[in-house]
Each structure stands twice: as structure tokens, then as C-alpha cells.
């Protein structure tokens, strides 16, 4: 190999974005192996990877992930449906706005996680308070964004539809809701990240299954490798949720100029 090609490769390596994370990983591995980073502080990346594989193979990770996933889906399902329903009523009618908007705005100021003691008193320590916390936390981002979206729909388009004799229901489904869809999707994206955040804390409530249960157990046995595996899974969960909304957006908002290839 000539000297110039070697410097070329070096220059490429320096400017590549994946090099520094890889170096950090190698440093972490070296630190763990040499004993600079003790096992009970942070397990080596190789150990984490091995644990990940064995947890998948034993079915421990998939089964617990499924439990956590179920909580998020159920909580989100309730929260998003409630948020959409409330926003529709408040956004589409003046009496609805008068009746709903102020109470929702008041409840919105409560930090969701601060409600967990109350929810435990009400719902015990089973699945219900976990799902209820996620549901409560995800109502507001959906409500606020959709309500705003509905109110922000171009009045001129509504006038147009009325001039062509469309019924109120036709206008809602052809003009107002499609017009508010971009806002709803923004709300949905917020709701997804809120749901994962609440899941992490809610699962610390005396869980007997789920990612939080795995982390709690691992803490008791100082298994930092398992803790790191669960953290990675949480991160992947968040990324996957964001990806999902992006896919939905690309399909549902294909008409937007930024996504249109005219």
C-alpha cells in the first residue's frame, strides 16, 4: 500500500461520523477489562451484548418487553382516544369549549408522575395505575394539538365548502379533520415520548413483570449488564415509536409540498 492511500484512509476515518462512538465503545470495553471500570459500576459492552443475547434466547427479554409494550399500547390507546374525543368536542362547538377547555387546562398543569401516589390509593398496585398514569399523561399533548389544529383550520376553506352546500358533518370530515391532521400527528409524537417516559417510572411501582421489573431485580443483584440492556431497549422503544409516526406522516401528509415531488 502506498503512503498516499494510507493517509487518504486516515483522513476518511477522521471525518467519518461513526468513528468516535466506536472509539468510546472500545475505551469503555478496555476500561472494563482492565478493571478501571468495576463490574458493579458498569458492565463491559461485550458483557452487555452477551447478556442481551442470552436474555433473548431464554425468552426473558421478549416476554417482559411484551408486558411493557402492552402497558404502553393500552395507556396510549385510552389517552389518545380520550384526547381526540375531548378536542373534537371542544374544537367543534362553543358550548363544548366552554365546558371542557378550562378543566382540561387546569388538569394539564398537574405533573402526571406526581399523581402516582393518588393512583396507587385508587387503583392498587396492579396493572391499572400504570396504564392509568400513561393514559392521563398522553391525553393532554393530543388534546392541545388537535384542539389548536381544529381552531386553526382556514375559515375560507370552510366557507367554500358551505357555499357548495356541504352538510356540517361533511365539512367536519372533508375539511376540518383533514386540516387538523398535521397537528394531531405532532400531538401523537409528543404523546408517544411521554408514554415511554411515564412507563419507566410507572413500572417501578411493585411490578412483577416488564422492563421495570427486570431493572429493579437487576439493581438488587447489582447486575449492571441487565440494567444497560433494559436501557437500550427503552431507547429502541422510543426510536421505534418516532419512526412509526414518521411513516404515518409520510403517508397521511403526502400532499404537503415538502414531501411532494412535483
Amino acid at each position, binding site marked *: 500500500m502506498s503512503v498516499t492511500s494510507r493517509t487518504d484512509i486516515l483522513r476518511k476515518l477522521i471525518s467519518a461520523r461513526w468513528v468516535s462512538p466506536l472509539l468510546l465503545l472500545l475505551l469503555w470495553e478496555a476500561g472494563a477489562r482492565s478493571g478501571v471500570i468495576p463490574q458493579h459500576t458498569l458492565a463491559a459492552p461485550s458483557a452487555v451484548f452477551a447478556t442481551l443475547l442470552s436474555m433473548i434466547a431464554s425468552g426473558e427479554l421478549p416476554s417482559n418487553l411484551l408486558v411493557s409494550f402492552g402497558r404502553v399500547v393500552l395507556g396510549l390507546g385510552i389517552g389518545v382516544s380520550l384526547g381526540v374525543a375531548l378536542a373534537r368536542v371542544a374544537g367543534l362547538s362553543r358550548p363544548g369549549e366552554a365546558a371542557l377547555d378550562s378543566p382540561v387546562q387546569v388538569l394539564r398543569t398537574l405533573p402526571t408522575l406526581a399523581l402516582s401516589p393518588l393512583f396507587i390509593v385508587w387503583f392498587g398496585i396492579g396493572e391499572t395505575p400504570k396504564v392509568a398514569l400513561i393514559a392521563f399523561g398522553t391525553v393532554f399533548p393530543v388534546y392541545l394539538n388537535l384542539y389548536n389544529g381544529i381552531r386553526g383550520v382556514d375559515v375560507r376553506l370552510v366557507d367554500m365548502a358551505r357555499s357548495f352546500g*356541504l352538510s356540517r358533518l*361533511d365539512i367536519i370530515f*372533508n375539511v376540518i379533520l383533514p386540516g387538523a391532521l398535521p397537528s394531531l400527528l405532532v400531538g401523537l409524537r409528543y404523546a408517544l415520548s411521554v408514554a415511554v417516559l411515564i412507563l419507566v417510572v410507572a413500572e417501578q411501582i411493585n411490578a412483577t413483570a416488564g422492563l421495570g421489573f427486570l431493572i429493579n431485580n437487576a439493581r438488587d443483584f447489582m447486575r449492571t449488564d441487565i440494567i444497560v440492556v433494559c436501557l437500550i431497549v427503552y431507547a429502541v422503544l422510543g426510536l421505534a415509536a418516532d419512526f412509526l409516526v414518521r411513516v404515518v406522516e409520510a403517508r397521511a*401528509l403526502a*400532499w404537503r409540498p415538502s414531501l411532494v415531488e*412535483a
Partner: protein
Amino acid sequence: MERNSPAFSVATLPQKPEPVVRLRYFTRRFGVNAVIEDLDLDIAPGEFVALLGRSGSGKTTLLRTLAGLDDVASQAVTIPPARAVVFQDPRLLPWKRVWRNVMLGLKGPQPRERAIAALREVGLDHRLDAWPLTLSGGEAQRTALARALVREPQLLLLDEPFAALDALTRIRMHGLVLALWRAHRPAIMLVTHDVDEAIALADRVLVLDRGRIAAEERIVAERPRHPADGEKLRGRLLGYLGVDEAAEPSPVRPIALADRRHPSAL
């Protein structure tokens, strides 16, 4: 849907068919301000009326009334059930493809085929599946025209539909509107503040000022009309609108009722 016979000609109006629009002593107030006061208006089937007026003259209010957008209960207002509006901005739903926009709320059999036929008529059959935000200004306005025409309106309201277009596109749109009007014979009310546009297109020009009809001119000349033909009329109309360079020295000339009904050759 009721249609005028093709033999019907606007120039030979005297036999007076039942008007499609009829307003008597129409008054519209916002607070204490009367935007429109004691306005009488008849539009015959298939008639092309241009409504001129400065901003704040009540044009928009009158148009909203004729479009059925404002509640005018307890007033003597007759408007046909089949009406359609082309607004100054195209007002297409950006989330529906062009042909779906034309089909919006369309009743009756085969709405898709009718929408496509209407788009072919305005020369947009190659843009059927386009998203509205990718259309040019002229294309968007032609889509709006197709959306109005596909409803086979007895009354077509045009609210300064060419104001935002460039001069060349505007001329082409004038030709298109005239062709469509000849083919379908709706009554048209064109709201504009362009005197030349009114002269080029209309059978009758109304000048609205402070909520009253300040002047009315009939035009019987054949289309296409040459701009030079209408010089005198142009000057008079500008005069009613209070533009100084007009032939008439007084800014607003009061018009006697007998004078108003008089057809004027250009």
C-alpha cells in the same frame, strides 16, 4: 336540474323570464352601519352581470348573500338552489387530489366521471391526480372553475377570480369563462374592480357604491369586444367609481331611474 333552452339569447331579453336572483329592499347591517341598503336586484337566467365597486362598497356582502353564506331570514331574497362560487383564491383542499376536489360534495350519479369531464373542459385532464399545492395559479383557478361548473349551477358567482393571476393568464381565463358560459348558460355574477374586465365579459354592468346600485349599464355589443370600442363606457364607469381621469368630470354622477334602464351601445 333546470336548464335554459339553447335558443335563449341574452341580447333579446324583453320577454322577461322568471329571474334566478331576486332581491327586494335588501338591507344588511353590521351594528349601526348599513353595508347594503334597500337594494333591488334581478338577474335573468343565463345573464352575465358584472358588479363593480370600490373596496367597502358592499360587494363582498352582496356576494355572500347570493352564495347563501349569510343568514338572510325574513328578507325578500330569492336565490336558486344550484349555485357555485369561484373565489379570488382557489380554495382547493390541499389534502385531496385535483379530481377529488372537483368532486367535493357532488351529488348524483357517477360523480367521478363528471368531475373528470369538467376538468377536461377546462383543459386540465393531464393534472387529474396532482396535489393542489403543485398547481400553478392559473391551473388552480381553472380547477376551481371546474369544481363550480360540475354542479351545473343556475347561478355562478365569480368573486374577483382573476385578480391574482398574471395578465396573460387572465386574458386566457376570460376566454375560458366566456366559452364555458356559452356552453352551460348559467347566470353569472362577476364581482370585480377591473372596469375593462367588466366591459369585456358582461351583458350588464352594475356599479355598487355605499351599499346602493349607483349605476347600471347594458352592453349589447358582440363578443369578443375590442378595448377601443368601449372607451366612452369605460370613462363613464370609471366616473361612477370616482376615478378622476374618467371622461365624466363629476366623481359620482347621480343616475335617474329612467336612465339606468336604458341600454347603451358601446
